[in-house]
């Protein structure tokens, strides 16, 4: 049975490249090294698949030939005044490149999923700049790992294991053993407490959750991890310290830390529910590290303040670099959302929300971003590639996507494809098609092909090329 080694995992922004896949009769039968989500994808991707193109007729989606579906898609896009072309983070850079050409040809708006993900981070990075690095540097050198508004154990399950706290670096050892002994201690204390309660027949009060001092492990010369979030997450369970912030108060805490790092005093007792003593100690831990990293997630970009929260986080790291070495990185979600930003920027100068309606690229998030265009009801057609806005956009915005003619190119059925007028099933990139994608730290890696796609499912890139060709033919014939 053929075994493919060093396969990249087309799921999250960690984009692990050490997966081993065993194939038998053109089906994946075994997956090694992948996380629960990666394994679920490799083993089940074909379960609910639709392999034939569909067109909506009399309210029902009916099977048609690929040529007909491409013809219809091209007609929808060529006839639209202001179409939106959305998605791109779950496909290859090669497909995105063709998508941009198509957007320019039809004079539409092209946007990728970072618009509802790390779009505010990009706005802020453009304002302030970013001191960042590759994940390899962190694996070997980082001794303080800070996750803010991010829950990697649920969203990027191998991130901690491969790149940060639990990775065995050249200069920093894994904190796994320390975590295990802490866990054993906690479980033993709980068992003891239960036994004491049982013997004395009384309910012992549980220890207070937040203490006024940080654990001593944070001041030791070893790898340590702090999680800041509005609720306790799986990642917070394994951290040396969990900093619980009140919802929508991240900005205040970040700015308070900036003041403390500059040795200024706070004339309040607490900030966003956190005693100032705790913040002072955290500032000490940050200043005292050899190399710190602040990973931030959608907890910052989606809550009140949005890009201003990221301004504060980037500025905090900039300030910290006056005292020690500190870096910052957004926890990118989809495996090629970074690649979508990169390709958009090569081609147009802008990373997302690019409007071609004036024949040249314009970029003004808030105006040219897809959620805003949909909320204002301005677009008159849509093309969605490898994304599911009907499931993930606020309903009020998705209503206007569904109201107009909608073309979906996606390897699997989704709520968006259920609502579409034309559905073109494609091959799974990274499983059935090769390509290129960018990891969250902007390192490009190859997507591998391990099985053959069904004959009716072409790569996204090929489908888009055919639509582009047809759009050009239609436009020539109109002129």
């Amino acid at each position, binding site marked *: 049975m053929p075994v493919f080694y060093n396969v990249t995992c087309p*799921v999250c922004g960690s984009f692990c490249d050490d997966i081993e896949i065993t194939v038998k009769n053109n089906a994946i039968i075994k997956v090694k090294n992948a996380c629960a989500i990666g394994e679920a994808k490799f083993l089940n991707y074909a*379960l609910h698949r639709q392999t034939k193109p569909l067109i909506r007729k009399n309210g029902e989606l009916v099977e048609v030939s690929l040529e007909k579906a491409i013809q219809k898609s091209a007609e929808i896009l060529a006839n639209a005044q202001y179409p939106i072309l959305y998605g791109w983070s779950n496909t290859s850079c090669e497909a995105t490149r063709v998508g941009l050409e198509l957007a320019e040809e039809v004079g539409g708006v092209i946007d990728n999923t970072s618009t*509802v993900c790390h779009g505010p981070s990009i706005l802020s990075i453009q304002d302030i700049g970013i001191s960042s690095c590759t994940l390899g540097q962190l694996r070997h050198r980082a001794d303080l790992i800070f996750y803010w508004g991010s829950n990697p154990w649920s969203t990027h399950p191998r991130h901690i294991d491969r790149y940060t706290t639990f990775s065995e670096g050249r200069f920093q050892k894994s904190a796994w053993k320390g975590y295990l002994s802490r866990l054993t201690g906690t479980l033993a204390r709980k068992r003891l407490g239960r036994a004491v309660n049982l013997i004395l027949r009384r309910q012992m009060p549980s220890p207070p959750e937040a203490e006024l001092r940080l654990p001593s492990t944070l001041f030791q010369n070893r790898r340590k991890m702090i999680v800041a979030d509005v609720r306790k997450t799986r990642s917070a369970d394994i951290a040396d310290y969990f900093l619980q912030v009140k*919802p929508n108060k991240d900005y205040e805490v970040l700015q308070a830390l900036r003041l403390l790092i500059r040795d200024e005093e706070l004339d309040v007792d607490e900030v966003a529910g956190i005693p100032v003593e705790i913040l002072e100690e955290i500032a000490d831990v940050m200043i005292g590290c050899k190399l710190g990293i602040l990973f931030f997630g959608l907890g910052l970009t989606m809550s009140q303040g949005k890009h201003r929260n990221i301004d504060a986080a980037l500025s905090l790291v900039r300030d910290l670099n006056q005292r020690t070495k500190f870096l910052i990185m957004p926890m990118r979600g989809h495996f090629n959302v970074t690649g979508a930003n990169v390709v958009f920027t090569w081609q147009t100068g802008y990373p997302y929300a690019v409007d071609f309606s004036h024949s040249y690229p314009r970029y003004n998030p808030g105006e040219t971003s897809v959620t805003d265009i949909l909320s204002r009801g301005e677009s008159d057609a849509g093309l969605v590639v490898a994304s599911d806005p009907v499931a993930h956009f606020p309903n009020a915005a998705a209503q206007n996507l569904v109201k107009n003619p909608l073309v979906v190119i996606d390897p699997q059925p989704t*709520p968006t494809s259920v609502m579409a007028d034309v559905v073109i099933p494609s091959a799974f990139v990274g499983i059935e098609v090769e390509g290129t994608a960018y990891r969250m730290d902007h390192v490009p890696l190859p997507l591998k092909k391990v099985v053959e796609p069904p004959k009716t499912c072409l790569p996204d890139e090929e489908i888009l090329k055919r639509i582009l060709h047809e759009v050009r033919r239609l436009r020539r014939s109109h002129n």
Partner: protein
Amino acid sequence: MPKLKVSLLTGRTIDQGKGKEYGKLSEEYQKSVSICEMDPEDIKLLKVRENDNVKVTTEFGSVTMKVVKSKRAPHRGVVFIPYGPWASVLANPKTHGTGMPSLKGETAEIEPAPTERVLSLQELLRKSFRRR
């Protein structure tokens, strides 16, 4: 019936992550995203039990889902719903000029819904998007 004012958080979970890879129309996905995680004390206040149906309402919409006990309490007054079609019914589309809708920290009201059922994905889509 008792009602609670809560702060609504949306986000990803490992089950939602696995569910979407089984397929967005799979039962695994639908089960993983049609739940809301609440603090056990808040569940008591609401006079419901785990897996009972509750109705969550925001300024933007209302949806019925199953309530489950949060494994990482306490977080009184904070309710967590995984990303997906159910959370999107409640989401605030305002982007404040950034392109990013407000998906975390919105105010919501939650109440028991003993007579309502959790819709299937197809039913929810039909209800939300009447055109299809």
